[in-house]
C-alpha cells in the first residue's frame, strides 16, 4: 500500500479524498443544500447499502468464474446456468425441509457434481482448445436453460429466509433530523433488511476464506502455481487433473450457492442465468481475470454502479456498468487488479 502511494501520489490523494467524502456522506446529517442537490440521505444510504450487498452477491458468482478461468483458461459461459440451477435446488430444498440453511450445502454439492461431470466429459476431452470449450459451454447453457424452463416453468420462485433473519435491523445511522413545531428534534435512523446484511457478511467471510485457501494452504499453492504456469506444474508431477477437477467443482458449487443467495435477495426465474453470467463477465473484466481480489473490487464497483445508476439515472443504469467496463478496457485492458 505504501508502495502504491509512493508510485501513484496523485491517485492515492484522489482515493483518500473519495473515502473522506464517503465517510462524511454516511455519518453526517446532510445540510439542506446537499439534500436539494442529490436528494434525501435515506435514498443515498439505501442505494449504497444495496449496492454493497449486491456486490457481495456478484462476488460469489464471479469468484467461481474467475477461479475457473484463471486456472484452466476456460471461459465457462454456462456459469449463469449453474447459478440458476443452484437457485432452483435451493428453493425446493428450503421449501420441502423448511430449513433455509440446509439449502446452501445441498445446492453447493449438487451443482459441484454437475461441474465435475462437465469437467470430465467436456473440458478434459478438449483440453487446450479454448474456443471449442467456450462454444460447448454456450451450447450447454442453451440446453440447460431450456431444460430448466421445461422442468420449473416460467414462474418466479422466492426463497424465503427463516424467521430470525426476516425483518429490519436498526443500523444507528442518522438519515434525517427534523425540528418539530414544538421544538423537539426528531432523528430518524436507517433500517435495513437483516437478511441482506447477514448474507453480505457471509460472502465477505467466503471471500476471505478463498483468499486464505489460495495463499496459506498447500492446495492453494498448487492452484496458484497452475494459474502461473500450468504446463510447468504438471511437469513437476503435481496431480494437475485433480486440481482442475477440484477447482471446477468448487467454482461451480460457489455458483450454485450464489443461486440460493440470489433467490433470497431477489427471485429465481428464467433469464436470471444470462443476467448473472453477464454480471460476472463484466465483474471479471473490470477486476482482472483470474484474480480473486479483482473479482471483489469489480463486484463492489458494478454493484454500486448498478444501484446508484438505477436511483439517480434510471434510464441509463445498465449502460453505466458497461461504461465502466469500456473505460477499464480502454485504459487498463488487463483489468484493475489483473496482471499484464
Amino acid at each position, binding site marked *: 500500500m505504501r508502495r502504491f502511494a509512493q508510485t501513484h501520489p496523485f491517485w492515492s490523494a484522489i482515493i483518500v479524498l473519495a473515502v473522506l467524502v464517503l465517510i462524511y456522506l454516511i455519518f453526517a446529517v446532510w445540510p439542506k443544500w446537499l439534500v436539494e442537490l442529490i436528494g434525501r440521505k435515506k435514498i443515498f444510504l439505501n442505494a449504497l447499502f444495496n449496492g454493497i450487498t449486491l456486490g457481495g452477491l456478484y462476488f460469489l458468482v464471479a469468484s467461481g468464474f474467475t477461479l475457473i478461468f484463471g486456472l484452466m483458461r476456460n471461459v465457462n459461459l454456462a456459469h449463469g446456468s449453474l447459478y440458476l440451477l443452484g437457485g432452483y435446488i435451493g428453493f425446493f430444498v428450503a421449501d420441502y425441509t423448511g430449513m433455509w440453511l440446509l439449502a446452501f450445502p445441498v445446492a453447493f454439492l449438487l451443482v459441484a457434481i454437475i461441474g465435475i461431470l462437465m469437467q470430465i466429459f467436456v473440458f478434459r476431452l478438449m483440453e487446450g*482448445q479454448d*474456443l471449442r470449450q467456450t462454444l*460447448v459451454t454456450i451450447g450447454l447453457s442453451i440446453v440447460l436453460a431450456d431444460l430448466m424452463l421445461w422442468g420449473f416453468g416460467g414462474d418466479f420462485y422466492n426463497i424465503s429466509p427463516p424467521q430470525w433473519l426476516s425483518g429490519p435491523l436498526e443500523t444507528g445511522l442518522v438519515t434525517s433530523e427534523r425540528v418539530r413545531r414544538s421544538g423537539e428534534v426528531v432523528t430518524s435512523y436507517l433500517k435495513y433488511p437483516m437478511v441482506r446484511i447477514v448474507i453480505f457478511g457471509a460472502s465477505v467471510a467466503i471471500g476471505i476464506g478463498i483468499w486464505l485457501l489460495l495463499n496459506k494452504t498447500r492446495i492453494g499453492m498448487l492452484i496458484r502455481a497452475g494459474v502461473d504456469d500450468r504446463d510447468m506444474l504438471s511437469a513437476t508431477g503435481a496431480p494437475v487433473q485433480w486440481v482442475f477437477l477440484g477447482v471446477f467443482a468448487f467454482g461451480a458449487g460457489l455458483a450454485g450457492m450464489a443461486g440460493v443467495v440470489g433467490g433470497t435477495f431477489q427471485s429465481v426465474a428464467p433469464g436470471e442465468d444470462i443476467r448473472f453470467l453477464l454480471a460476472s463477465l*463484466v465483474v471479471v473484466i473490470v477486476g482482472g481475470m483470474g484474480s480473486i481480489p479483482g473479482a471483489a473490487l469489480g463486484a463492489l464497483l458494478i454493484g454500486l454502479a448498478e444501484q446508484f445508476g438505477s436511483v439517480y439515472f434510471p*434510464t441509463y443504469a445498465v449502460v453505466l456498468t*458497461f461504461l465502466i467496463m469500456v473505460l477499464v478496457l*480502454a485504459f487498463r485492458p488487463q483489468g484493475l487488479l489483473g496482471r499484464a
Partner: protein
Amino acid sequence: MALHDLERPYDPTSAEGRVARHWFERIPTAYWIVVFLLITMPVYASNFVLFQIFGWSFILGMIATSLMFLAGYGGMVSLAQMTFAGVAGYSVAIFGESAITTISQGWPFYVAVPLALIVTVLFATGIGWLAVRTEGIYTIMITLAIAAAFFYFTRQNYDIFNGFQGFNSVLPPPLFGVDWREAIPFYYLTLFFAAATYFAVLYLSRAPFGLALQGVRDNPRRMAALGFNVTGHRVAAYAFSAIPAGLGGILLTWQTSQISPGTISLQPVIDILVIAVVGGLSHPIGPFIGAFLYVVLKTFAVDVLIAVGLGGERFQLLIGLGFLIVVYVSSDGLIGIWRKIRESRNRDPFRTREGE
C-alpha cells in the same frame, strides 16, 4: 457447393503452369448447378419458401458470414455481429421512414441506406478498437458484454431508439416501381446481396489484406516483426465485417418491416454464433449452410416436436443439442464433417496402415 476445392490452397503459380483456360471454364460444375438452381428457384418454390425460408436464410447467412470472416480469417470470435446488424437496421429506421414519425427523419433511401452503412462501419470500428485490445476467448466475453449493453440501451432509450417498441413500418423503397417486399423480388434482392457477400469474402480471403489478416491470426508477433500493423489489420477486419452485417441488418429490418430490441437481444446474438459455428468457420459457404439449416429447423421443428409428442416450445433444446453435437464431433462445423467424410472416402485402403 464447390466444397471440393476448399482443401486446395490458393496457388498463384498453378494457373501459369498449365495451358490457360478461359476463366469460366475453371469454375467447377457444382457452382453452375447451384447458381442455376438458385436463379430458377421461384419457378418451383412457393412464396412462403422464397420469402420466409430463403430470404431469411440469406440474411442470417450474411450476418453469420461477417462473423465467419472475423473468426475464420482473423481469429476473432465476435458476438457483436448481430449488434452491427441492429445498428444498421436502427439507422435505416431513424434516418429513413417509419411509423414513428416523431423520431424518423424521413430522408430518401439513397441517403438513409448509405448513411446507415457508414454509421455501422464507424460503430464497428470503435467496437473493434476496444475488442482487439484483448485476445482469443476474452474477445468473446467483451463482445458479448457489448452486445448486451446495446440491447439494454435500445430498450431503455426512448429518445433515439423508441425503447421497447422500436420502429415499425420500415419498408424497402419502391425502386424501379417494384414492391421489394413481394416474395419474388425480395428473394432476388437477398440472393444478390448474399452472393455479393459470399464472393466478396472469398475474394478478400485471397487478396493481400486477407492473407495478411490470416498471417496475423496465425502469428501476430511474426507479422508485427515483418512490419505489418497488427492492430490496424484487426480493426480494419472489424470495419469490413460491418458491411455484410449491416446489409443483412437492413434487409432483416425490411423483411420484418420492423426493428426492436428483441431483434438484437442475446438470443439472436447467440443464434448467429450457432449458425456460423455449425456451418463451419473456414469457408464462407459454411454460414449460409448453417443459416439454411437453422431457418428450416426453426420453421418446421415445431411441427416435428408436436408430432413426437413434445411441446413446440422445446425448439431451443433442439437447437442447443444440435449445436452441442456438431461442436463435439467436429472442430469446424459441417464443413469439417464433410471434409472428414471426403478424406476417409478418398483414402487409399492399401496405404492407410503403413506400419503393418
